[in-house]
């Protein structure tokens, strides 16, 4: 009877639907629970509970709970130095940084039911877990101190191979021990010190974006390395004028030469030749226009590469101007993927999680985000970045002991404002274990202002054995 068959068919549909529903419910709790819960709009996050300790990889305590009367208060011994990356907890503003992204671990909420019961019975309350970060407090302090006073900007120092962040600084910063001062500033309408520029700041990448343009050219234009371009100092594309730094004419250059001296006209020509679709595809393989989901860093900020626009806009985009914007952390990932043979690793802040009595609970492991290009192309870009340090615009970062690879950037911001300075580098060039991104707002040249900071960080990090 067809009707009975149809009814059984309907039952099959309902069976699948309800099974999927149950599986999905388990999925959102098990795999998305932490990400969903650790949200600044979740009023379940409170300050009264005791939280676990946060420590740097060299053993410095960065955050701890202390008893004050009958409530727990959070204390940050390193004050401003870790302000954005470790974050704060506050009764009005809830939490930020690691304090927000790892609320459940710190409060012990995702302990197993047996552990929870054990804690309740024998310890009186659920004990939070301690976190050991990938950050090195010495390098973090050096990075913090290296930023010129009064200048806004960010620094990211990482290991490109495993994605561990060794230092991450954003200025201006704040003292998480004194959130009342921050609130006062906020009420006065001053620009917020809470913004973590390293993660949330959207900047025009300027010439550092030539890394992406070069990858695109190498992967899409046959015989790219043999090509020659004639730089006359300026070029006119679709009626809009574009010129090299200081109007210098670089003459007859190939890709290597153009990259080394950061020749704008050549890259503008390359960009126009590549066309919008091809450039967009490469940019998106580098995760432009995409949202990152990191385990340790909450980010809703997306770097953008325009999906449309005429040839003059495209020429601008090819040299990292126009509507292209990137976050400093994302720029660090771009540099890392060149250093790491084309593979982009997830940036990480948490090395391991320990119980309240410091028993190891979980060691975090590296994770790949995506592959952006072939190892061969990555190697060519590496060589080009070595040339930048040896003969080009990045000589300031050269170290005696180690070969450094780098790219400078000076990003125009429009109007009469001075440009933002960029400096990106990694070392040792043949087997990179360190990468650094420095951006300073409105300081002018990247090489002159940011280069020395990058050099100092690389030098110190190598000294500490990284």
């Amino acid at each position, binding site marked *: 009877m067809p009707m009975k068959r149809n009814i*059984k068919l*309907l*039952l099959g549909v309902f069976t699948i639907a309800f099974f999927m*529903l149950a599986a999905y419910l388990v999925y959102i709790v098990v795999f998305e629970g932490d990400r969903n819960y650790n*949200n600044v*709009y979740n*009023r379940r996050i409170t300050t009264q509970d005791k939280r676990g300790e946060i420590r740097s990889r060299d053993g410095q305590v960065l955050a701890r709970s202390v008893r004050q009367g009958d409530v727990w208060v959070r204390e940050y011994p390193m004050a401003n130095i870790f302000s954005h990356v470790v974050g704060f907890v506050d009764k009005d503003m809830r939490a930020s940084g690691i304090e927000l992204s790892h609320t459940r671990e710190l409060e012990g909420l995702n302990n197993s039911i047996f552990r929870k019961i054990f804690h309740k019975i024998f310890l009186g309350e659920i004990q939070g877990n301690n976190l050991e970060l990938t950050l090195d407090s010495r390098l973090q302090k050096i990075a913090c101190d290296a930023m010129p006073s009064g200048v806004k900007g960010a620094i990211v120092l990482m290991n490109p191979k495993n994605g561990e962040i060794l230092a991450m600084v954003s200025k201006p910063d704040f003292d998480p021990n004194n959130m009342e001062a921050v609130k006062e500033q906020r009420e006065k309408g001053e620009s917020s010190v809470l913004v973590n520029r390293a993660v949330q700041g959207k900047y025009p990448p300027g010439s550092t974006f030539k890394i992406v343009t070069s990858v695109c050219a190498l992967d899409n234009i046959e015989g790219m390395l043999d090509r020659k371009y004639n730089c006359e100092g300026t070029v006119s594309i679709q009626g809009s004028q574009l010129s090299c730094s200081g109007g210098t004419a670089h003459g007859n250059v190939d890709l290597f030469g153009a990259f080394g001296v950061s020749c704008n006209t050549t890259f503008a020509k390359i960009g126009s030749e590549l066309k919008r679709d091809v450039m967009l595809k490469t940019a998106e393989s580098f995760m432009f226009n995409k949202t990152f989901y990191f385990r340790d860093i909450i980010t809703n900020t997306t770097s953008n590469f325009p999906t449309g626009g005429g040839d003059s806009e495209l020429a601008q985009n090819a040299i990292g101007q126009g509507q292209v914007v990137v976050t400093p952390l994302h720029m660090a990932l771009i540099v890392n993927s060149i250093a790491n043979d084309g593979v982009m690793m997830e940036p990480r802040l948490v090395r391991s999680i320990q119980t309240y009595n410091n028993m190891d609970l979980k060691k975090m492991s590296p994770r790949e985000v995506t592959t952006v290009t072939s190892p061969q192309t990555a190697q060519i870009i590496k060589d080009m970045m070595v040339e930048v340090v040896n003969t080009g615009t990045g000589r300031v970062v050269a170290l005696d002991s180690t070969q450094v690879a780098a790219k400078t950037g000076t990003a125009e911001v429009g109007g009469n404002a001075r440009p933002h300075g960029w400096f990106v580098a990694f070392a040792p060039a043949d087997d990179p274990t360190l990468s650094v991104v420095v951006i300073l707002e409105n300081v002018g040249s990247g090489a002159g202002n940011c280069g020395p900071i990058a050099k100092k960080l690389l030098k110190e990090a190598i000294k500490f054995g990284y």
Partner: protein
Amino acid sequence: MAAQRIKYGDIMSLVLLFNIGAFSLLTLSQKPLDTNAILLGGIISLIFAFQYMVFTLFLKRTDKLILVLISFLASVGFIAIYVLDTSLLIRQIEWYLIGFVISIATIVFLRYFLKYIYKYKYLYMAATIGLLLFTLIFGKEIGGAKNWVTIGRYNFQPSEFGKVMLIFALASLFSEGKGFKHIIIGGAFTGTCLIFLVLQRDLGAAMLYFLIYVILMFISTSNLYMTLAALGVGGLGAFASYHLFGHVKVRILAWRNPWADITGGGYQIAQSLFAIAGGSWVGVGLGNGRPNDIPVPSSDFIFSVICEQFGLIIGVIIIIIFFIIILRGVSIALRATEEFYSLVVIGTVAMIALQAFINIGGVTKFIPLTGITLPFVSYGGSSMVVKFMMFGILQAIYAVNEQHEDKLRRYPLEER
């Protein structure tokens, strides 16, 4: 037979134990002791026990398993509602009692009239459209949808009662004939209902009405092309409403990414996800957590409240229970002696199942949020009463099946 009754009795005892246990915990967790909780819990347990007794003693030819499962669903709902708002629980108990009476009335009524009611398809259609039209004219807006009618001190949702009428109308239509004509008449009738529902901004009900039509049409006519065509038209309608109505667009965008507009369109779903994540496997414990952060916690989002309080485990159990109800319903439909009965049962079971699926799927971000209640769990008078009516329909046809099979057993030759 006797062995089976004992088995269901055992499950019923477990439900009572669960209910009493939960309300005892609520009592003990307060200082001073919250005696209201245990008092109300006791009353609820007595009602459950009384209801079970009535069914075992006076309505022997009924499916006790469905009854027991529904008592459990209601118990979880009662506990969640108590956590949210004590005074609301008292009203919900009233509704449960009214629903209980309605279910008995439905069973008794259908025992005598089931044989005759298959032929009034136009009456049912007129009643459905009348109810919706009435709402459109006299309705008032509560919570974004204009689907409420106030009579005296009670608020009704006629679209809830329309659901029963719709099932009867379509079952009657399709048991009469399966031709193109019948499919078109059914489509025109359902389409008219949908227009009224969309005008009332009651998208959840619109989705339900549409799917019930598709299901009953397919089951009875086996016409795959028309089923696909209907689904296509439905898809087009959904696409059009996405572009025509701002509120539909907001819902879809909030489903795609609630975090992008967390203070606006994504607020409800985000709060729901916080609660479910907060509950984790075993919940934060009765009375803990922040159930009142969740929007419309006692009706549309009660599942999120339950997940925060009891944890994922009860969430999954609720899904399983709805699935068992579907299984029982399908078995009633397969055993039914008349096609009309089969279609009525399938319509009823599908309505309960779809509502559960759409509600739970919505609050967990599995599908876009549409704003409908969770059957037998959510707070709400019309919802509770109509669900009990549906429960009564299932039981009445179960009784007919039993009666028929008894007869076959007793006079096997005569039937051949």
